């Protein structure tokens, strides 16, 4: 090797290094520039203004707690007690929470020495430690109070509405209504609603104790009351999850059944006609390209909202994906095995059955089962658009903007459902084609 050669090689190597160095710094730099562009394109500086932190606080606190409303209607003077202020959570006639006392004067003990008294003639007294006794009088549409002009930031007051927020609960006063919200941790009425005889009974008492409801056996009655719980709707939720899994199952399996013969048509080895091959492949590209979103929109017009529409949207989109995967798997089939089967005098159909299928079935099954899990997630999303399954229940619960504990419940269920399907498809794959090592 001469000096010139060496020099040239060194020069080449240095050039390569320079190039690599440039790429090494260039790619992160491009990404950084892109992030800066996004920072302004998505208006991140303005996000702080648009974000509603109050919503975030409500969401975070309501998702793991519940509140009991004590409401006085200032026109009729009636006082109602209701969990979450919902009709379904109203305490039956003659019952009320044990932190409320008195008949003429109703005393509400919020805890932490905060006491609210509903006095006759729509008067209200609020005792808060370290603050003056608040007296309020509701008349027609206005509320008059003895509050000073200079208020701490946990009290907001106008002559129409007074709001007091404490660590123990909230109090709002308007001309029409006086309301106290008392907060408690946990999801209330998750097992039984207030009208069920099993409300407040311990598990041991239901299982082994005396018969509570004379008409029904304990376990049967409790199961039925829990299943038909009007507040948490366990029955509807179970159906919704079933619908979502059904959408994923029907869509995935239907797509696989349709895509398998089409995959043969698109594979070079099994489909000698170029025209057929190209047409099938373009069909796959088309249904994949249109995407589940547009299919959902189109199909919802024909079939209306529901699980069938979602299943068909998944089916059509995945036919394209499966067709592509299957035809690629078929292209890679080992010819030797087919020849071996053919050498025994097998007819074409037998050659496919014993020469081709055993080679591709593991690949196909692995893909189908993987998609089953991923489609459970898609079915949740499609359900939110087309109106079916747990996705719909989640969107509805979020849109009401108050049932955050239900939202939290659905989220937990959705994650559990997807993880279950992940585990299940992995288990089935292990059973059917052996675990990969």
């Amino acid at each position, binding site marked *: 090797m001469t000096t010139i050669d060496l020099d040239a090689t060194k020069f080449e190597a240095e050039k390569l290094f320079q190039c690599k160095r440039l790429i090494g710094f260039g790619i992160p730099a491009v990404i950084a520039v892109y992030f800066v562009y996004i920072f302004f394109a998505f208006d991140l500086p303005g996000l702080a203004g648009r974000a509603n932190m109050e919503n*975030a606080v409500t969401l975070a606190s309501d998702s793991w707690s519940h509140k009991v409303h004590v409401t006085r209607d200032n026109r009729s003077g009636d006082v109602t007690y209701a969990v979450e202020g919902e009709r379904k959570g109203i305490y039956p006639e003659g019952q009320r929470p044990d932190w409320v006392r008195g008949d003429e004067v109703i005393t509400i003990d919020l805890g932490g020495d905060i006491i609210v008294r509903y006095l006759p003639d729509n008067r209200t007294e609020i005792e808060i430690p370290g603050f003056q006794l608040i007296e309020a009088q509701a008349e027609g549409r206005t509320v008059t109070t003895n509050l000073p002009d200079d208020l701490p930031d946990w009290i907001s007051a106008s002559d129409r509405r007074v709001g007091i927020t404490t660590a123990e609960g909230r109090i709002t006063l308007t001309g029409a209504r006086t309301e106290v919200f008392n907060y408690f941790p946990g999801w209330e009425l998750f097992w039984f609603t207030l009208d069920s005889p099993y409300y407040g009974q311990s598990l041991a008492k239901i299982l082994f104790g005396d018969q509570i409801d004379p008409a029904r056996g304990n376990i049967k009655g409790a199961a039925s009351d829990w299943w038909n719980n009007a507040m948490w709707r366990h029955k509807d939720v179970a159906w919704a999850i079933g619908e979502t899994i059904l959408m994923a199952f029907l869509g995935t399996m239907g797509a696989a059944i349709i895509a398998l013969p089409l995959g043969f048509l698109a594979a070079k080895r099994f489909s000698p006609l170029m025209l057929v091959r190209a047409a099938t492949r373009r069909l796959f590209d088309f249904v*994949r390209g249109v995407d589940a979103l547009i299919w959902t929109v*189109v199909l919802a017009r024909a079939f209306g909202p529901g*699980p069938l529409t979602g299943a068909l949207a998944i089916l059509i989109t995945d036919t394209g994906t499966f067709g592509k995967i299957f035809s690629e798997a078929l292209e890679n089939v080992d010819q030797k095995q087919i020849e071996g089967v053919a050498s025994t005098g097998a007819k074409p159909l037998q050659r496919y059955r014993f020469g081709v299928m055993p080679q591709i079935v593991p690949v196909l099954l692995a893909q189908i089962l993987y998609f089953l899990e991923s489609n459970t997630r898609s079915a*949740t999303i499609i359900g939110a658009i087309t109106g079916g399954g747990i996705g719909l229940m989640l*969107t509805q619960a*979020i849109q009401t903007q108050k049932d955050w504990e239900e939202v939290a419940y659905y989220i937990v269920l959705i*994650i559990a459902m997807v993880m279950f399907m992940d585990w299940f498809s992995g288990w089935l794959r292990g059973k059917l084609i052996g675990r990969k090592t």
Partner: protein
Amino acid sequence: MADISLSGAHHHVDGIQASYMAQVQRRRLYGGLALLIFVVLMASGFNVADDRNAGGFWDGLHQIGDYPADVLSEAWEKRADLPALIAKYFPALVETINIAAVSTLIGAIGGLFLSLLGTRGLAKWPRLIPLFRRISDIMRAVPEIVIALVLIFVLGGGPVPAMIAIAIHTAGALAKMFSEVSENTDLKAVEGLASTGATWSQRMLLGVLPQVAPNYVSYTLLRFEINIRASAILGFVGAGGLGYELRNAMAWGPGRFDEAAAIFILLFGTIVFFDQVSSRYRNRLTEGQGQ
């Protein structure tokens, strides 16, 4: 002597054949039963889905072409406006692609760390491997729409909730794919670097990344393709971009079908375009790998 052993072998073969046939028959029985269960599940599942749907399958089947036909005919009538409409919705398309791109980038970076921290032999804190694995499992299990809807409530509509939601799911999904690759890395390079006193980040950057980069980039491109679809869908529930415009255009109904058609065209074109580009690059990246 020879006679006896021959007849013994004969019996032996008979026994083998009988047990083989029994096995084949049992296999066929199981296969047939599995097929039967599958068919029953499909049929009853279809019936349940059909029952719970607002419109029936057989009634809807012949209406399936109505909506596309309406959209197409109206778009054809107003075909002169179509280029202008496509130009009008182009910014929304850019937003959809941006959501997908940013969330893929952030998700890939997150997935990279989660996978390295969750792989045996590479993890910085070997005891925390199960923790990082569980984290990525949960991130993967959360459908994008759950996070997007909650964040839309807090942050208001727009691209940011969708971006965060997709990024979280992407990080979890890529962490799983990445760690499948990084489990097969050659640890010699890492050991060599460790012997020179390299820190964990240097070992990862110089010892592991060069080995896994082609596969990582290939998976990231595949994810980008998936995320474009996800970002369009999330737009439909209020997260901005093309999906949001599609929902608005559809809410108008007839008379605005040309707008819906323009959005359909943009979305279809984009998905097909990125599909082709990414599959070409993925093929090039993984060429010669795994052989």
